[in-house]
Each structure stands twice: as structure tokens, then as C-alpha cells.
């Protein structure tokens, strides 16, 4: 917990600090991406790096697929690139290089070479980001053998996991969430690593296990808070890594609570929540007292209108209601409507004024 070597900084500052420390420690590390050196610096996560590290921090042409191949090639000869994208959706153009080359290079040449590449992607949400600017494709990427996928929910983990990702000898997909960038947390100043593939219990409880990742961890914690008032003690687990999954901890928690809710800020079918529940079923977590539940996005593209976003995005209320059903309690009424001048369901807080 907080001590004198820690201070509260934002998630985005944590990413900036981790990147800066990696650049300082290893001259093989470089940062490349659209807008990395511009005055906004990828929502503040790369600000000032160019001034400090010069040519190892660079902008690039709008050519995601080629630039991913370029990053891969440079990693074959010893560089350790951090490639950034302002939205997950833009990386879709580079799936060929990610899936066909980065993920398989080590394997298809008999383990002779490695691709120590980090690809940062940011999930958009709300403010009308819509069908092509707010997708979370973590489960798609996590289904590819050879990739690692991490999705930190806190500033502390953002720093620790980014450093681990950079020092890892494999391609690591590092997925951020736009609504987490402004959140605060205690973060040590020194360089430290958080293990890839290890989850974290964010709140202990005995009655139900809520497993989530990234931004949905915050909604899960809010739900746990609401449930506590009813005397229900939820255990909230932050996966932190989607691939590899922390099987042991998932099983351990579900064996204790005998109830499981898998929450994911992505689609249900073939998704992270499905994977968690499949794992629990397969590895036998003892008899569950209720059918496990998935709380995810509906099986549709993401609508733009804030009136639809309100119904689209699952929030703490929905998690809470799912748990309440398990305990035969009536559901909490529907989310309040989007009121003129109100905060609405399409912004993380009042300070967010769009447009991006």
C-alpha cells in the first residue's frame, strides 16, 4: 500500500513512465506510432519522450500493416519496438502481420528467432465512437497461439505490465481503455514488473466470484460495493492477462464461492467471458450453486447514438442484477435515462467533453 516511494498518478502517466524507463534502460527499445510525437502524445502517454530519447521515438506513415511488418523485422535483429495505435480498430489493418508473422515466427522457424514486440492498442467507448472506433478485439487476438494479451485495469498494473511486456521475448498485445487513462492509482517510481499471466484479487468475498478485466473491473468493483449493502460479499478478480489465462486462480476462487459471473467489455460469443466459464466447467470447480453468467456486449456492432449506447454497454447495475438473480432478489430498476445536460452513459465522468 502507499508508502513514501509511491505516489498517486494516472494510468496514462504510468504508461508514460514505464515507456520512459524502458527507453532509458535499453537502447534497443524504440517507440513508433501515429501521433507518438504530436502535441497530444497519444492521450499523454508519449509526451516528452521525443525530447528525451530523440530518434528512438517516432511518428510513422499511416500504414499499419507495413509498419507492423517493419516492427517485426527490426525485432528479428534485436530491436524491441513498442508500436502504438490510438484505437484497437486501426490494428485490424495489420492483422496479417500480427497473426501470420509475429505470432508464428518463433514456432515456424523451429524456435531459432524471436519477436520481442509490444503493440499498444486503445479501446474507445462512448461519445459516439461507434462501430469502427470502439471495438475490443482482445478475444480475437487471444485466440491466436503465440501472442500474449494483457489488459491492465489500474495505473499500477499498467506500468508493471508494460515493463514486463517490453522485456518479454514474445509479441505482447497491450490493450488500454480510453476510460482508464484518467484514473488514479498508487504507482512506485522505480521500475518494476508485474507478471504476465497472473490475475489479481481486487476485493475478497465468499459469496460469488466476479471475473473481469480492463475497464469492466471498475464496474465490477462498483457492483460489489452495491451488493455489499445487501450483505452479499462478492470476490472481484481482475484477469490482467487474457492470454495466458490464470487458470489456477480462477478455479481457486470459484471453488470457494460456488458462483461465477464472467464480465467482459467485448462480445459474448467466442469471447473472454466464454473462455472463463468453459475453464471453470472443464476443470471442475465443484458444484456451482447457480448457472454461471456472462455479462458482455450484445451480439451486435457498437452503435453510435448515446441513446443506444445506454442500452448497449453493461454497467455495474447489470452485474449487480445478475448476482441478485442468483440470490433470488428482485432486480434494481433500469438505468436512469440519458438526460439533457446530464452525464449520460457515454462518458466516464463529467470532465470528458469529447470529441475523441
Amino acid at each position, binding site marked *: 500500500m502507499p508508502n513514501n516511494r509511491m505516489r498517486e498518478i494516472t494510468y496514462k502517466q504510468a504508461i508514460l513512465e514505464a515507456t520512459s524507463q524502458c527507453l532509458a534502460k535499453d537502447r534497443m527499445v524504440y517507440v513508433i506510432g501515429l501521433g507518438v510525437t504530436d502535441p497530444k502524445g497519444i492521450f499523454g502517454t508519449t509526451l516528452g519522450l521525443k525530447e528525451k530519447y530523440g530518434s528512438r521515438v517516432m*511518428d510513422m506513415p499511416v500504414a499499419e500493416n507495413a509498419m507492423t511488418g517493419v516492427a517485426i523485422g527490426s525485432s528479428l535483429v534485436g530491436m524491441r519496438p513498442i508500436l502504438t495505435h490510438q484505437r484497437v480498430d486501426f490494428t485490424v489493418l495489420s492483422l496479417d502481420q500480427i497473426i501470420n508473422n509475429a505470432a508464428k515466427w518463433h514456432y515456424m522457424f523451429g524456435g531459432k528467432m524471436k519477436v520481442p514486440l509490444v503493440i499498444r492498442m486503445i479501446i474507445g467507448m462512448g461519445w*459516439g465512437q461507434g462501430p469502427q472506433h470502439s471495438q475490443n478485439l482482445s478475444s480475437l487476438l487471444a485466440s491466436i497461439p503465440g501472442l500474449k494479451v494483457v489488459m491492465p485495469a489500474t495505473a499500477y498494473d499498467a506500468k508493471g505490465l508494460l515493463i514486463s511486456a517490453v522485456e518479454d521475448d514474445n509479441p505482447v498485445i497491450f490493450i488500454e481503455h480510453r476510460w482508464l487513462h484518467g484514473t488514479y492509482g498508487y504507482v512506485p517510481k522505480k521500475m518494476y514488473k508485474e507478471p504476465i499471466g497472473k490475475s489479481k484479487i481486487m476485493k475478497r468475498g465468499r459469496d460469488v466470484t466476479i471475473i473481469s478485466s480492463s475497464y469492466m473491473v471498475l464496474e465490477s468493483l462498483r457492483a460489489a460495493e452495491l451488493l455489499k449493502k445487501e450483505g452479499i460479499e462478492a470476490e472481484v478478480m481482475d484477469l490482467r492477462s487474457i492470454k495466458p489465462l490464470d487458470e489456477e486462480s480462477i478455479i481457486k476462487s470459484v471453488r470457494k464461492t460456488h458462483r461465477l459471473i464472467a464480465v467482459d467489455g467485448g462480445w459474448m460469443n467466442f469471447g473472454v467471458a466464454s473462455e472463463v466459464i468453459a475453464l471453470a466447467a472443464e476443470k471442475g470447480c465443484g458444484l456451482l450453486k447457480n448457472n454461471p453468467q456472462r455479462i458482455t456486449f450484445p451480439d451486435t456492432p457498437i452503435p453510435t447514438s448515446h441513446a443506444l449506447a445506454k442500452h448497449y454497454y453493461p454497467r455495474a447495475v447489470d452485474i449487480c442484477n445478475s448476482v441478485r438473480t442468483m440470490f433470488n432478489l428482485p432486480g434494481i430498476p433500469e438505468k436512469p435515462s440519458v438526460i439533457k445536460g446530464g452525464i449520460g452513459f457515454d462518458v466516464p465522468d463529467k470532465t470528458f467533453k469529447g470529441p475523441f
Partner: protein
Amino acid sequence: MKINKKLFLALYYQMLRIRMVEEKICQLYPEQEMRCPVHICIGQEGIAAGVCANLKQDDYVLSNHRSHGHFLAKGGNLKAMLAELYGKASGCSKGKGGSMHLVDLNVNFLGSTPIVAGMIPVAVGVAFGSALKKEKKVTVVFFGDAATEEGVFSESLNFAALKKLPIVFVCENNRYSVYSPLSARQPKERDNLMIAKGYGIYAQRGDGNDAASVYQITKKAVRFARNRKGPAFLQFDTYRYREHCGHSFDHELNYRSKREFNYWLKKCPLGNFEKKLIKRGVVDKKEIFLIRAKVQQEINMAVEFAKKSPFPEKKEVLTDIYA
């Protein structure tokens, strides 16, 4: 150039209307009711107006994130566009798309999307399908300078040239990709015209801030494409005055010099055109006043329509997934 009064008035009207709509959006955006990213095209109206004046109602147009001007110049429905920005059920995409996903099938504006260069091959496909059906239509696709850096740009030119498709590629070179100047993204020797010509494609460059010249250059290209001589590539130099995304100016970010900005401000496509028309006696101040008043009234009514329209209902989340 010989003054064709009717044409010049049409170009002027088109640019003025786009400018006034965009300014209205900029004025209303801070109300926080249009809750989607908007990419304002103020400064680039000359291209939308000059290109689309050559198109028939059933010619096809596809566009990118900065598409308000293209949509309007092609004859897209203003009310449906504004309602879309407000996320309303009466919007052109029923609120599911927002500013970055405009469509109006009545005038064959087949859509705009914000993935850079994503529409270029789709437009080639539209021209391909149209040619297979032996239609006499031309397809136009608008994109920015950054889109030419994507691999799919080259791949699309290749196929369009291979099949001699009736398509006009229109590159709006406003020199920036968000805050990144051309110099950070392309070698200075690069010449898109040479690239297009390398594929055997007819290519021309023009001043995007001169609607009359855009019109003339496009006229030849459209005729060329319509006569099935093959695709055409046009690049127009221009400038965006507002921030990349959003309603404001962004001088405080200092990624563009004041000098550069002022240079382009003096080249305002609308202001200069207006002066020229007055000087040559095509219109006088009073007529301009009346045109403005008429456009303002139309815009106010469209805004009122958009604001008063109902939001899509909850069940709309689950519709339109499959045809």
C-alpha cells in the same frame, strides 16, 4: 476562364451552404448534444463543390471521416445528416453511425467511414460492379493525403487500372494527418501523380481552393471515366482551418505555423470566390444577403428537425445486424 453565370452561382451556393452548415455544427457542438466525433471541412469546400457539380444524381460517391461537404454537395439530405449527428432515429443511419457514417441512397452517396483508406477499394468495387452491369455511371471516392500511405491505396489503383474502371479517385491534400505533417509521413520526392501514372492511370493536380478550377479538372476526369477510358486520379491541394476532430481552432497546439495558417486563410475558397463573383458582376451584395438568409433558414429548420426528432428505441440495438 469564361464566366458561366449559372455554374458559378451553383458552385458558390454549394460552398456557402457547406460552410454555413459546418459553422452551425461548430456553434452547436459545445452544447454536448451531438455526441460523436465530427471532422469539420471548413476550408476544403471547393473540392466537394467542384467535383460533385460534375456528377449526376445516380453517380456514386463514397467518402471518409471528413465527409459532411461531400455528402451535401452530392445532394445528401441535410435534415437526415444533422439528425444523425444528434444520434436520432430520423438520422440517415438511424443513429447507429453518427457523423463518421453518413449515407443517402436517394443520391447514391453510398457511405462514409472513418477507417483511413477503407473506402478506396470499396469504391473500386462499386465501379467494378457498375461496369459489369454496363451502367453508364461514374464512381467518385474522396480521401485524404494520409490514405495514400495505406497499402490498400496502391492495391486499389492497380485493380482499377487493370479493369479500366469508371472511377475518379479524389485525394484532398490538406497536408496533415491529425497533427502529423506530410514531412513526417512521406518522402518529399513522393508524387502521387507519378504513382497513379505508373499504373497507367490518368492523373491531374489542382488548386483545391479554386472551385472553378476543381470543376474544370474534374470535368475532364469524369468524362474520361464515363467513356470507359479508365480510372482517373486527382489531387487537390487545400487546408483545413479547424482542429482535426471537433469544432474549435487549435492554434495553441503549434503543430502548424501561424504563417502557414494565414497563408491558407488568404486562399479561402469561399471568400475569394465570392469576391470574384461580385467583381465580375455575377452577383451583388444584396443577392448574397438573400442567398445567405435562405440557406440560414433551411439550416435552422434542419436543426430544429434534428433536435425534435426522437431517439432510437432500445430495441434498435438489436436490429439491422443481418439483412
